[in-house]
């Protein structure tokens, strides 16, 4: 998961990376005393492209700070409103650079990316130079130096970049960051480097060995509504879409395959919901139904599970329990297949449900029901 800029900068500062000495603003009515203007007033949001959406304002005095803060607190970036702003000193610099460490399959581990031209347009420019590393312990100064020599003429800067990049790679491994991106990394008048912005993406699955990740996950759940929160607590993966046919599915690829088929057959998928419960638990279906039943944009729920380790007799019994508990009248279409699917018809018969023989027929039925709802 991505953390906010000021959180990322605090982490970088803790490992010796220079960052501006900024202050946090948590409300438009409680503004800090700024010693020296101008400052950069920055909305703290997770969505990308903040700069282009007007999320960074240059502020020259206290009056402008008040107006700027009110404006940023009231702007929605992507699908989020900032809960906090960062006021950084506006620093003069000589050059804007790009430096990041991320995970890359072809590198078999970490890769360092460097571009001699950083800033908001880095994605549309020349692709950055790549230094593939593998495990963090394989970072070699001479390896990155050879990559830098081709794109960066300033040898003193090169050595500073090597020293910084190694620390970023070590931090990525030690703190389970899948991405640490500094854009821009600026070179100040005295030649030193400073991270003017920072983006860090934590590895969610490392929560048991990094309390920061655990705290971020708790905060994410606290921001969600009660239905989504219950679903997240079961470990479900949920992405809301704009259609009316909700999907309870198992496995990411199969869920996407079903979404694609709904669209191709003329329907509109309402969500990606991977609710793989594992072979021993079917508790996860209850919060999934509660969330989808409460969503007024959803007309039909399609349950499509093709399980290996997930046993269909257990899923069918869980469906029976959930259907008895539900108050919603929204129709549910079932398509279960996989391990012990032969036991499904007998269980479904006891509560009058039908198991579709294939995905095509289940999708067709769901679309028909959505149209007549």
């Amino acid at each position, binding site marked *: 998961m991505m953390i906010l800029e000021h959180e990322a900068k605090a982490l970088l500062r803790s490992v010796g990376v220079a960052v501006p000495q900024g202050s946090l603003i948590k409300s438009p009515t409680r503004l800090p005393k700024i010693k020296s203007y101008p400052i950069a007033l920055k909305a703290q949001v997770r969505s990308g492209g903040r700069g282009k959406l007007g999320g960074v304002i240059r502020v020259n005095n206290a009056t402008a700070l008040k107006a700027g803060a009110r404006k940023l607190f009231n702007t929605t970036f992507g699908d989020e409103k900032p809960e906090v702003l960062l006021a950084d000193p506006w620093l003069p610099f000589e050059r804007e650079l790009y430096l990041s460490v991320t995970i890359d399959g072809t590198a078999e*581990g970490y890769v360092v990316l460097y571009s001699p031209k950083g800033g908001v347009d880095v994605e549309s420019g020349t692709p950055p130079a790549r230094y593939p590393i593998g495990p963090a312990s394989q970072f070699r100064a001479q390896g990155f130096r050879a990559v830098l020599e081709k794109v960066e003429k300033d040898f003193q800067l090169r050595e500073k970049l090597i020293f910084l990049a190694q620390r970023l790679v070590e931090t990525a491994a030690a703190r389970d960051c*899948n991405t640490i991106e500094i854009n821009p990394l600026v070179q100040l008048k005295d030649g030193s480097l400073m991270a003017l912005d920072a983006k860090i993406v934590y590895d969610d699955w490392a929560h048991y060995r990094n309390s920061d990740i655990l705290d971020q996950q708790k905060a994410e759940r606290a921001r969600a509504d009660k239905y989504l929160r219950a679903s997240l607590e079961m470990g479900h*993966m949920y*992405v809301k879409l704009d259609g009316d046919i909700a999907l309870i599915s198992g*496995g990411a*690829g199969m869920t*996407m395959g079903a979404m694609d088929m709904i669209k*191709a057959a003329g329907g509109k998928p309402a969500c990606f919901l991977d609710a793989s419960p594992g072979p021993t638990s079917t508790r996860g279906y209850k919060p999934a139904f509660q969330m989808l039943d409460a969503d007024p944009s959803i007309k039909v729920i399609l349950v499509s599970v093709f399980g*290996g380790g997930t046993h269909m007799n257990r899923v069918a019994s869980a469906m029976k329990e959930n259907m008895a508990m539900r108050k919603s009248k929204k129709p549910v279409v079932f398509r279960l297949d996989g391990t012990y699917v032969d036991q499904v018809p007998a269980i479904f018969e006891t509560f009058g449900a039908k198991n579709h023989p294939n995905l095509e027929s289940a999708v067709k039925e769901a679309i028909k029901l959505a149209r007549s709802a």
Partner: protein
Amino acid sequence: MSILLDQSNRVLVMGITGNYGKFFVTDSGGYGTTVVAGVSPGRGGTDVDGIPVFEGARAACQATQADTAMVFVPPPLVRAAAIEAIEAGCRLVVATADEMPVRDTIEIRAAAKANGARLVGPNSPGIISPGKAKMGFMPSFCFMPGPMGVISRSGSLSYESSKRLTQAHIGQTTVIGIGGDPIKGTTAAEAMALFHLDPETRAILYLGEIGGAEEAAVAAYASQPHAKPVAALIVGKTAPPGKKMGHAAAMVGSKADSHAAKTRLLAKSGVLVCKDLTDLVAQAKNALAAAA
């Protein structure tokens, strides 16, 4: 033939006394997999359905000549168990666990490379050579032996697709789940290379999704002059950009990650691209016809 796995693999189960381990012994043993040993620290000297349990992988390998490991321990413990099996001499290690920190996978992959071993997974259904052996929980009735090599980033999609092939009487040499994570024990490129060398694999079916660089590797293979025919299904056409679709690697972050870009690249490289799941069998048949 098949790739990586058949009845001759002697399988050691790391975490054999847990629920997954026990079910695996019954299910996979019943399918034909040669399960010879298990490891469960503190339970050495006992057995699970007659399979001897050892304190550690080295003792297990020495006593039973195990050369392959199936890892069924909780995600935080997978790195330790997988590397223990590799260093005890296992040449193939299958780890199906999802919820694995990426750094752990990077380290297992590096340990495998240093020891001349191969990891399959994580976040994968495992691997099955139909009619011979399976390492994972895949529903056996979906598979039958035959000429198609199958590579999948997603478990359930590999079951769905294999069942469609089997119903159409198209059997499989091996179905390998390379997994949904950004770092893979075995990549699509490596799996393609293995299928290329297997004389009984006549064509390859690749099941991919949005995000990541695997599809570019599939395209690179298919554009080589002596490549075997490749059919591919890429899911996630309807996925919105910037959202992680369950799998850590399944996200449209850049233009190259999108369904449109991937299918265009694959088609340009001579891959038979399936329009959707319904089109899968037709393209698989076309790939086999092209191999004849």
